[in-house]
């Protein structure tokens, strides 16, 4: 492992105090801690606002429960390295990062495999929503930073990024909204918290457990991103996708309203 000479380093090795705390084995409660119901399309209230980063072409900030995500969009700017497709279509570049203090255990500065994978998933989810043919020879950069991860980080990152893109005035076919779900046996938990995402099962059986993220183009009713892992039978899986789609539709109005406010704040109504 090469040493990182570009940052101040602490001791060679340090451990999170959580490693020394006796974890009490608790069976997951019947009710969700925040009072939401299992098996219901019950998303946390969302606070969304555009245009907070003055330097960016467009930006958005989303807070849902304790999860906090910020996103900036830069460009269209000149593509750094070009190939034939860049001559006709713009290039979308997505970076997804967790702030070092955003998770229960501190994460490092160097982009992890997980962050790379999530960047890829973010790219795949946003790509279908953009009119990239309007931006030949150019590149649009989307960077997402999770300030606090209390579950469903990728889903909120997708929503946040699409708001930032719309705020930047990038032409889009539709907004892109994200929603996560956690399947626990016969029940599902929509928009799970970090504790719900990571809790150990009550029983050894791993049947029908898993996590899922769906990205939706709400007015075209098209799924632009789907990422799911776990152990799922076909029926619960299909139901979970449907629940996520409904979850996305639930946050559409918040996203719309956020953009309307941003447009009115940024620009006066045109004359004539």
């Amino acid at each position, binding site marked *: 492992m090469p*040493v990182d*000479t*570009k940052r*101040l380093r602490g001791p060679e090795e340090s451990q999170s105090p959580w490693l020394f705390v006796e974890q009490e084995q608790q069976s997951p409660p019947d009710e969700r801690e925040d009072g939401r119901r299992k098996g219901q399309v019950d998303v946390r209230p969302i606070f969304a606002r555009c245009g907070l980063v003055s330097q960016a072409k467009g930006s958005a900030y989303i807070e849902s429960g304790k999860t906090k995500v910020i996103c900036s969009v830069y460009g269209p700017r000149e593509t750094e390295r070009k190939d034939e497709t860049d001559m006709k279509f713009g290039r979308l570049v997505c970076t997804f990062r967790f702030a070092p203090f955003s998770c229960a255990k501190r994460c490092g500065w160097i982009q992890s495999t997980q962050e790379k994978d999530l960047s890829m998933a973010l790219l795949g989810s946003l790509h279908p929503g953009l009119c990239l043919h309007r931006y030949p020879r150019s590149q649009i950069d989307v960077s997402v930073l999770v300030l606090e991860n209390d579950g469903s980080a990728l889903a909120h990152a997708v929503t946040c990024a699409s708001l930032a893109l719309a705020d930047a005035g990038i032409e889009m076919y539709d907004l892109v909204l994200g929603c996560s779900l956690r399947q626990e046996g016969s029940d599902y938990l929509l928009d799970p918290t970090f504790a719900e995402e990571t809790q150990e099962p009550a029983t050894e059986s791993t049947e029908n457990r898993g996590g899922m993220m769906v990205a939706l183009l709400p007015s075209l009713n098209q799924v632009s991103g789907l990422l799911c892992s776990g152990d799922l039978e076909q029926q619960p899986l299909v139901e979970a996708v449907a629940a996520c789609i409904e979850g996305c539709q639930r946050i559409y109005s918040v996203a719309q309203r956020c953009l309307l406010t941003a447009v009115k704040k940024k620009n006066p109504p045109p004359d004539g």
Partner: protein
Amino acid sequence: MVCLPLDAGAHKFRHMADRRLREFGCEQNLLSRPDGSASFVQGDTTVVVGIYGPAEVKVSKESYDRATLEVILKPKVGLPGVAERSREQFIRETCEAALLTALHPRTSIVLILQVIHDDGSLLSCCLNSACMAAMDAGLNMRCLFCGVTCAIDLDGNIILDPTAKQEKESRAVLTFAIDSVERQVMMSSTKGAFTTAEFHQSIAICQKAAESIFQFYRDSVGRRYSKS
């Protein structure tokens, strides 16, 4: 090019009290590859500098109205870290203010500093050697500059040009770069806490000490060009 031993031909001073600089000396043009070079010795602290340029510049670093200045500081042992990067910034921005970079647009000037030994007052030694190397390279400059370090000990006494041991035992260490035209503060880097009065006192002492370094610059240039 003959490589002279470090003190040959170099001027030496000997001072007794704390309010004096340690012996210092310099040799210019000691490296054959760079366009300009100098080594500066302050007590046991020694730094060698090589300058390349004005030379071709990478497109990404090109600026249309002036030369791009790059400073690389190599520690005595190990890889350069964040502390070196911070010192590089100090040296680069001081040089940028002194060099007339606008005369060489779309070029690059690279300064490479190698620490040979650190026995205190390293940053000032780096600045002095950089200035001597820039003179050796024949780069156009708006003014000369010199670096002077002083330390404030626990009793509030100000020690000029401290050794590493003195630095460690003192409450604060201040390094200034002084310009040769107005004798004003070009650069300031401080460690430890001190009062405003101590700050001004330190500047005054360093400004005074700068006179002897500038005189030394003048002498060495005079000697060099009277020879040929």
